[in-house]
């Protein structure tokens, strides 16, 4: 009997293809939207963490208050001892110092005269130490566009856009003009070894990278750093955990009279991320909820209309001696089969599109060229485990629910009245 009914469904496009198509499209869009929003928000968090905020960050209080000005005169000192203490107290985290500084980069011609000049932001990281994990964290190997990464002291890499602007190629010399943490003027020549693309318009505009030891020497910041970044060893940001650690750390220095006492911030407590990400999370949650609700209503209606359209068939079947129970049972089995097929197709297509968006992404670099916040220049989806059920469940059950409601009419009416209403 079930085979007989399924054969009928497959032959009647309005009973099979249309509901399956509606379910497939609804489930596919749900999966795509969910994967895409998850990807975008995760990328914003990851990129901020890697390029700027860490999972937690320690600065001096006054540095934190003026950090937009890159005030290295307010930097943290005695960081080796601080890192030792942090490693002991917070073993889940890896600590790495970074110094940000501003200055003028000068590219000389063959005779040593200025060929081109431009302002730039320096980022000093532990680029020569493999243990620091900074190369992997910033994915500098992957981001390399030209030349090679620095292998020794005195070498520098530039963002590719910045190098193009300064018309400098790997192997050429470049000189930095700026000031030490004490305010003395400093200039230092470097050999440019390569260019990188960070994938963040803000960073790609005019950033250069040198080793932190070179920066400490040049800026007179022996055993000091502007910022000390902490990363969870599993590389996943856990806001609750980060908040507890920051609270615990800050409590130790709450009563400190030292105006340069360190203060710890979580990722979300920097760059206004908590507000924007929480709002984004809320909006995406509401959006996905509304979408799933709308999809459920459409599918519920599809099931309802599909059931109502078949009252004539049900009437014939009742007259031929099929019981109400059997008509209803087979109706639900059909709806389950259609819901299952539609959900499988929709989830599969959604995952394929998500995978494509994860690998290729949507390039928005032109739209965010002048962005002042760190955000990815390519928006990507993430294929996560929840995508396997987020569309599947409403796809399966909405159709079933709508059909069950349509089928309820079979029970509510007396057979003769139903028979008459069924236009038999």
């Amino acid at each position, binding site marked *: *009997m079930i085979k*007989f009914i399924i*054969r*009928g469904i497959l*032959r*009647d496009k309005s*009973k099979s293809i249309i509901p399956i198509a509606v379910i497939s499209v609804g489930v596919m869009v749900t999966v795509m939207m969910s994967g895409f929003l998850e990807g975008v928000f995760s990328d914003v968090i990851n990129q901020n963490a890697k390029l700027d905020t860490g999972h937690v960050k320690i600065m001096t209080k006054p540095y934190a208050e003026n950090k937009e000005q890159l005030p290295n005169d307010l930097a943290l000192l005695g960081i080796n001892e601080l890192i030792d203490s942090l490693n002991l107290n917070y073993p889940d985290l890896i600590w790495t110092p970074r110094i940000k500084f501003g200055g003028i980069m000068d590219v000389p011609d063959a005779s040593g005269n200025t060929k081109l000049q431009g302002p730039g932001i320096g980022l000093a990281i532990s680029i020569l130490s493999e243990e620091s994990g900074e190369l992997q964290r910033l994915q500098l190997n992957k981001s390399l566009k030209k030349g090679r990464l620095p292998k020794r002291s005195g070498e520098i890499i530039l963002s590719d856009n910045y190098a193009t602007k300064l018309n400098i190629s790997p192997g050429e010399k470049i000189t930095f003009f700026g000031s030490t943490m004490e305010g003395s003027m400093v200039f230092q020549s470097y050999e440019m070894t390569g260019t990188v693309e960070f994938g963040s318009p803000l960073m790609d505009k005019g950033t250069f990278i040198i080793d932190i030891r070179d920066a400490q020497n040049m800026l007179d910041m022996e055993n000091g750093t502007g910022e000390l970044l902490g990363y969870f060893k599993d590389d996943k940001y856990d806001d609750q955990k980060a908040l507890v650690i920051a609270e615990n750390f800050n409590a130790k220095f709450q009563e400190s009279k030292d105006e340069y006492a360190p203060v710890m911030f979580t990722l979300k407590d920097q760059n206004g991320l908590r507000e924007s990400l929480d709002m984004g999370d809320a909006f995406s949650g509401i959006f996905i909820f509304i979408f799933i609700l709308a999809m459920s209503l459409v599918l519920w209606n599809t099931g309802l209309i599909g059931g109502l359209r078949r009252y*004539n*068939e049900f*009437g*014939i*079947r*009742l*007259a*031929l*001696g*099929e*019981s*109400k*129970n*059997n008509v209803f049972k087979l109706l639900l089995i059909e709806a389950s089969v259609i819901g299952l097929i539609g959900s499988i197709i929709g989830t599969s297509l959604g995952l394929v599109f998500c995978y494509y968006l994860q690998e290729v992404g949507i390039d928005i670099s032109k739209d965010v060229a002048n962005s002042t916040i760190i955000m990815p220049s390519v928006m990507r989806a993430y294929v996560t485990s929840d995508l396997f059920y987020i569309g599947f469940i409403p796809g399966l059950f909405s159709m079933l629910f709508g059909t069950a409601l349509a089928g309820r009419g079979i029970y509510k009416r*007396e*057979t*003769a009245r139903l*028979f008459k209403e069924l*236009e*038999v």
Partner: protein
Amino acid sequence: MKKEPIIHVKNVSKSYPIAGKEFMALKQIDLSLNEGEFAGIVGPSGSGKTTLLNIIGSLDKPTQGDAFVLNKDIKALSHNEAASLRNYHIGFIFQVFNLLPVYTVFENVEFALLLQNNSAKERREAVMRALNWVGLTDHADKRPDKLSGGESQRVAIARAMVKAPKIVLADEPTANLDSENAHEILKTMKKLNQELGTTFLFSTHDEKVMGYLDRIIHLRDGKIEKDEKNKL
């Protein structure tokens, strides 16, 4: 020994609530049909023909009185028991054929047997036998939309007859057919009645049908006006 009637309706009334009032569709009907009869309930629209047919077909229950079909008390049957009675013993033929459009002629006739859990071989033999009765064996693989009105009604007869029911209830079976097809259909049903001994009960106001009936039960305003042997 006197044979029990196959259909026995005793003092049956049926009322429906319409616009807050009870509308009496049938008023104290008494009727008996013996096995093998070829009878018809004749009357104008609204006289209660279909209501009476629905009660005999176990699709409805009387408000008052008793209806026995094959010794089963219609009033006492549960939904499943009523479905089982229809499944094994009662065939229906409708005015508008009501074939399932996505299935072939063979499958439409086979459907009645699927409910009886017969084997595929048994079903095939029974379906081809029924199609042979109505002269449509060469149309077995066609869909209903490829059939004429007369052919569609013959498929409906095959569907009603395939399970070899004791009773066939035909509600205005010729209403949508031209004269020639109507006569063909009626001849087919008469032949099946004579060869297989199946009891046929029609609801009709078509004079062509009346010409074939052995017994005519006149119904007017929910009452039997006359119950007579056909002298035509």
